[in-house]
């Protein structure tokens, strides 16, 4: 992927993206105790698309990301990523398929015992077998992209929340995933730090062909970057469509209620 071809800020590019289905969930059910979070859910995401999941809290959006990252296991159903089954699958295959997926967390989850640089190079070196030099060079490029080149020898605790989250984005991208899962990545940030993180993500959405699956409450951001918006309610997709349609003329009452509450 190229990170140096920046399109102008206010223009949605028509760059051809990798096509075909990348993620598929079939009849996925997830329960926590008696509570069914995802109910027989089917949905798929095409390669290169930016999909935003919206909906009230508890509607199962984050659960989908966590299932894809294998932080949770579904009770029923099949999950396929890039043609390979992620669930059910033997551990060895899970490890293989998981390489294609990266995640950025609400709470950043940087490793506090490592420098910024080492946070980014750790996995490429130990998982992908990159040389330390190559991994560091790549880390520097990524840090430049997220605007943090001066901070590579610092520890996470010395950075602001916004800076930490940008490091976490660089860390996820360093593994060169095909899919980037973004789990409410600005929810834990002070308001003045949100824009910096969202700009970085817009930049990535525009300049790479990475597939994004994004849970957010930032509706303007969702409108900007999304190819498709999925409205969740009680573990089901109740409405799906391009952002212009979902945000301007939602069909479903629940969508209208939700949007009027958050916009």
């Amino acid at each position, binding site marked *: 992927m190229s990170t140096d071809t920046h399109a102008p800020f206010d223009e949605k590019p028509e760059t051809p993206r990798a096509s075909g289905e990348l993620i598929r969930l079939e009849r996925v059910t997830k329960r926590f105790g008696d509570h069914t979070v995802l109910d027989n859910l089917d949905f798929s995401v095409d390669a290169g698309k930016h999909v935003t999941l919206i909906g009230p809290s508890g509607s199962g959006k984050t659960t989908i990301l966590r299932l894809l990252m294998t932080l949770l296991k579904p009770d029923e159903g099949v999950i396929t990523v890039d043609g390979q089954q992620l669930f059910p699958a033997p551990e060895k295959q899970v490890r293989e398929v998981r390489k294609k997926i990266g995640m950025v967390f609400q709470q950043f989850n940087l490793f*506090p015992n490592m420098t910024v640089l080492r946070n980014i190079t750790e996995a490429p070196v130990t998982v992908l077998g990159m040389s330390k030099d190559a991994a560091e060079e790549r880390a520097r490029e990524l840090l430049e992209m997220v605007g943090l080149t001066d901070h590579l020898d610092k520890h996470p605790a010395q950075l602001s929340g916004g800076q930490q989250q940008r490091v976490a984005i660089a860390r996820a991208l360093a593994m060169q995933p095909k899919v980037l899962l973004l789990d409410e990545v600005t929810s834990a940030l002070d308001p003045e730090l949100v824009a910096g993180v969202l700009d970085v993500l817009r930049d990535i959405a525009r300049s790479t062909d990475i597939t994004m699956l994004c849970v957010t409450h930032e509706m303007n951001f969702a409108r900007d970057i999304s190819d498709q918006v999925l409205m969740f309610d009680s573990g089901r997709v109740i409405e799906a469509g391009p952002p212009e349609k979902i945000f301007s003329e939602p069909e479903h009452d629940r969508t209208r209620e939700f949007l009027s509450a958050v916009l």
Partner: protein
Amino acid sequence: MNWDWGAVADFMPHFWDGLLVTLQVLAIGSVISFVLGLVWALLMRVPSRWVTWPVGTVTEFVRNTPLLVQLFFLFYVMPEWGLTLSALTTGVIGIGLHYSTYTMQVYRAGIEAVPVGQWEAATALNLPMRRTWTAVILPQAVRRVVPALGNYVIAMLKDTPILMAITVLEMLGEAQLFARETFQFTEPLTVIGVAFIVISYLASLALRALERRLVH
């Protein structure tokens, strides 16, 4: 009661011998308890009852029986089973083993205190389990528990005189031997009392310095 500096001077050569033994017991005993405690703590996380049940039972047993009984057992019973070790070796192993059952709980608390997000980030980056432990979880867990481990070092120091019971001549043993021969109790006991305070104090200073280095 008269204070006799002459007795102090006479005792000092014995004192140095005892001090050396006490410090050896403390240093090696601490290392054993740190390493073994970590081993217990990690074994207790193995998702198999065939591992956790025996480890849990043995460590619970050791933690809840007196150190003195364990030392007697190691010193007098093990030779009958064909394992004869010197008194000092027996004492170091006994005290290290005993304290490992405490340090294991310290490690457990430290491991559990590492936020679940750290595990999740390690999974998201596909780090192998071993690497997750060595590079992510343990460095954070150990850093958190250094103060608690240090307290056990000081507690262990205060338990070293128990080794006298299996003929190890640490500081108290030397003091008692000296007192028996000279009938002068005040001076040797005072000297070793002061020595215990000084060692504890130096240990706690070293510990605080270590904590400061770890928390940056």
